[in-house]
């Protein structure tokens, strides 16, 4: 091994190139609250979901399930439906999402009130 002044320059040392792994996409709060997440769900529900009502309960339910499944597939394609549901349910316990949820409901409530007033 060379000794002397050249060694300290570090010319002979190999430069290590460490490649970082591509970060794995996660189903987390940020993704759930992004515009493709829950906002899209409530946005499209009105136009996409049409129920037939009494006597068609099971087909209505499968329509509802399909609606959610396609939404989840768009949001986070690699997860299976039932796994995804349980992951989202777990996220729902976080403080941030709980606050958001309360907001959504009160918004809906305000809307309902407005409608009530309008009807009267």
């Amino acid at each position, binding site marked *: 091994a060379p000794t002397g002044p050249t060694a300290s320059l570090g010319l002979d040392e190999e430069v290590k190139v460490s490649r970082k792994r591509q970060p794995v996409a996660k189903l987390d709060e940020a993704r759930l609250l992004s515009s493709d997440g829950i906002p899209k769900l409530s946005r499209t529900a009105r136009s996409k979901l049409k129920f037939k009502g*009494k006597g068609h309960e*099971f087909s209505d339910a499968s329509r509802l399930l*399909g609606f*959610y499944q396609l939404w989840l597939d768009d949001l986070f394609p*690699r997860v299976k*439906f039932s796994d995804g549901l349980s992951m989202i*349910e777990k996220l729902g316990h976080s403080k941030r999402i*709980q606050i958001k*949820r*309360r907001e959504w409901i009160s918004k809906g409530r305000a809307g309902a009130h407005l409608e009530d007033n309008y009807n009267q």
Partner: protein
Amino acid sequence: EAALLGQNVQVVDPEVRAHVYILVTALGGFNGEDAGRYVLGDDALACLRDIKKWLKLYDEKSNRMDVARCLGEANLVNGDLLPILSLWWESGQNSKHMSRISLACLEILVPLTWPVEVHSQMTVNHHRHTPYLQQAQVLYKRGILSKNMLGILRAVIKIGLPSMAIPKSERTARDEGILKLMLYLFRNIAIISPSTRLAVEGDEEETSRSATINAFHEQDVFALLLTMCSNIGDDFNLVDIIILEILFHLVKGVDVEKLFIDDGQRNVKRVDELGSLLQKESGLKREYAKNAPTRHGRFGTMVWVKRDDQKVSTVSGQDILKDDHWQATLLKMDQSKKWSKPQPQRRQDVESSNNDFNLPTHLTSLAAENLRTFVEELLDSGFNPLFIHVRKAIEREADRVVDANSRQFFYLVAWFLEAERSRRSRRKQQRDRNPRASKDIEPDSFALVAGVLNQETFIFLNRAMQYSFDNKDWQDLNAIMRCFTQILLTIQEMAQSPLEEDREIAENIQNRIFYEETTHDRVLSILRGYKDQGFGYLDACTELSHVFLRMLERYSKQNLDMQVRSRRRSKRQKPAERSTDDNENDNEDHDSEAEELLEVARVTKERKFDFNRFSARFCNQKSVDTFVAFTSFYRELSEEQLKRAHRFFYRVAFKQEMSVLLFRMDIIYLFHGMIKGPSALHSSKSIFNDWEEFVRQLIRRLIKKIEQHPALITELLFSKINSTLFYLEYGYEKQTTSST
């Protein structure tokens, strides 16, 4: 190379091996002239004693298993001990020398058959020898039970008989020791079963539970046990725990209902079972055929699913072109995903291998018959003395009691109570069939099982339940819950008894059980506390809450002025363990109990019981989650279990008007799949209609709710928050807190 390496490893010190082999050879053997006959060596008794010393001073003292392994390899049990014992039995001679030799054989047999378990403090030697010894023990058991060895068990009983005949006061410590040895051998035989992890040579049937039961019946072990049980208080009070263990290992996992049906019924049932299995299979096939490709595998159909924003997904296969193509397509899209959420690994309990009662056991019809006879006789004579005695021993924390015993106690109480109920219903059927014969038969009272329906047992049970819940001993809690459930069911039957006295007692007991509000709270918190403790636990806790709730409902309806004692939350520590003094005085016991009552009275008050309020507390997110976890096994559940789940959800959704709790996507997905999915419940089951109707009603409500409150669309993904629950259910804010 690897094989060579393995060959050179000395598992056991060669010198030890040589010593042991010499002893075994010197013990005796089959004679050359008369090859079928075992001839004892000149110094057989001394050899046996030496072997015993080796086991004790080498194996036990230095915590190795080397000698046991050598003895297994030298085939001591099947080659020497058993022939000696049968020689003694057949010759019928009672010389002192021979009976000493047979006793020495028993003294070696017991440690050799002692259960070898995987436990937390194992040395290298343990790891090396355990699998070998487990396999060897199965061979020992086969030798002991085999038909051509006539009556080994009988011979063992004969060893013990002289000691049994002596009255207890005159028995020496040696006599007591012999009795224990005898019973321990029976216990060991009952425990040994072919390990599921190791392949066993030969017929597994010969060492099965059925074979054990049949041998116990033929060779009068059952008769011995019955005698001991019914005299347990007077003559045999030190062997109660061993008998408890024998009983436990005989009946664990045995289905009581199947045991208590007639042969005729059994045949019918078996045919039914076969029929229903075949039907199930053909159902599966039909289900498959519905979606099976109608053309060859390379036909190559592909479908586009048009999505938003001009996106397209592709799905292949012909089955998606069928009638219900929407559901099928979605299902296929889901199934083709490769990634699945990592499942949390359940940690495995190390010590549960022998004490697990969740595995069902199948018995042959002969064994079932034998066991049933034994169980009925035990119920008639020995049940009360044995279980009262054992309970006292456990409460007193006697030296002979180990932790597993209380679990075994509760499991057995549950099992025998269920057996008693099945026997009653069977008798009732027989009586109904020929009413003429029944006129002179008195209706039976419940006195036969009264030993476990007294106040002391309830106190013991409640305390144990709280203790195991606090300490997270889930297996124990599982056994206790089963026990409590069976007690409740027995009392329920007792309340409908034709005997006035029984009805009064039942009323009294119900009053006592339901009087303590802490019991109600405990049942509730157990149900709420489920978190992957396994299916057996899930089954037990849902059954308990089901039975408890229904009985409480009925009882509170009959007794409108029912009172409960509710305890204000006090920081006072409950005395977890009572004094451990062995000769505890009964009077003292009562006194301290009275004191305890007084002290409790300071922080408690009576109040009127309101069933609606209680039932409302049962309907919360956690218990819904527990029942959902239970229902997700719907493919394997029995009708009774499905009914249990159905009643609970019905109560939540329609009786308590809390259907919002069920409005969660995974629950809807599960319910929808149960009725319409590819692995739906079989529609020929009678419970299917109940479920279908329930799910239909629930979905109808859901759809209505979504149309009223669009906010529910997002809320459907989550468990509901308490503050918004009321609004979502009723559509307006809770105005005032209810004051009832």
